[in-house]
């Protein structure tokens, strides 16, 4: 499974986009599309940027909001497959 899909928030956004196609493509095709959407968020510059902006900021135990680029899903996008996403 693509590592971005391990993030429940990202997985929910992807699943929401795919929901209308459940049953109209085969199970294998559906699962493949799910992986490809995650890969698009990881490798496509415009998609990675959209993810970085939209993903909820993480909050540490002190309640402090962590700065952008400190562990949000967009960072996972940046280092997936070793490719920078701009």
């Amino acid at each position, binding site marked *: 499974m693509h590592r971005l899909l391990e993030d429940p928030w990202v997985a929910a*956004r*992807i699943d*929401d*986009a*795919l*929901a*209308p*196609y459940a049953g*109209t*493509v*085969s199970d*294998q*095709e559906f699962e*493949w*599309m799910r992986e*490809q*959407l995650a*890969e*698009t*968020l990881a490798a*496509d*510059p*415009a*998609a990675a*940027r*959209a*993810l970085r*902006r*939209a993903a*909820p900021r993480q909050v540490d135990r002190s309640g402090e909001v962590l700065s952008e680029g400190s562990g949000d899903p967009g960072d996972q996008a940046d280092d997936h*497959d070793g490719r920078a996403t701009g």
Partner: protein
Amino acid sequence: MGESGRQGHAATAPPGRDAAERDRLAREGIALGAVVARRLARKFGGHVSVDDLRSLGNSALPEIVDTWDPSRGTFEAYASQRLTWAMRDGVRRETHGRSAAARARALLASDRVSRAYAADADEPGTTAEAHVGALDQLLRAHAGAMALAFMTADPEAEEVEDPEQRLVTLERRRVVRAAIAALGERERALIERHYFGGEQFDAIAADLGVTKSWASRLHARALAALGPALAELRDR
């Protein structure tokens, strides 16, 4: 001409590239092709071998070497992109089994959405809701692109022999056509002619009197609307 031959630089070689330079670029291209082939083979889920993909890439290399223009970017970036297109287009044309061909077509459709977003001015929203809305729209466009490629698979062209599978494929086409009918006039024409009629994107754009980049935006918008249109059809 395939997808690989329609994008990027001008189709003529910049003057002054000698044989030694061409050989050096070809060697670099072969090494890049191996990397691209391994990545695509994973995407195709084992339906196409790395060797087949490398072969498709190598066939495209002479043109890639000839058409690279150093003033417009590195050879690595240009060749990687062109090799990717050449391999995907080759798989689509040579149909290494239905699944691989459909996946290649889905990846090409998703690539077109990526190019539309890359060409658009970056105008971020100012609220968290706007950012999430933009992300959802982008995901819906990519999802629609891939799903449409699967759902418009022609059972004849895809050599579907199983009668039950043929019926499923035909039913998919009927449902998606009904959803497309709900789109705006130009979006509908673009989607119908490209996915069902097999017409080249550039030709349809010219016919509709819009630029290629504007057609790409229409395409992305139509695909983002396709999922909700399908869902609405189901809910009736």
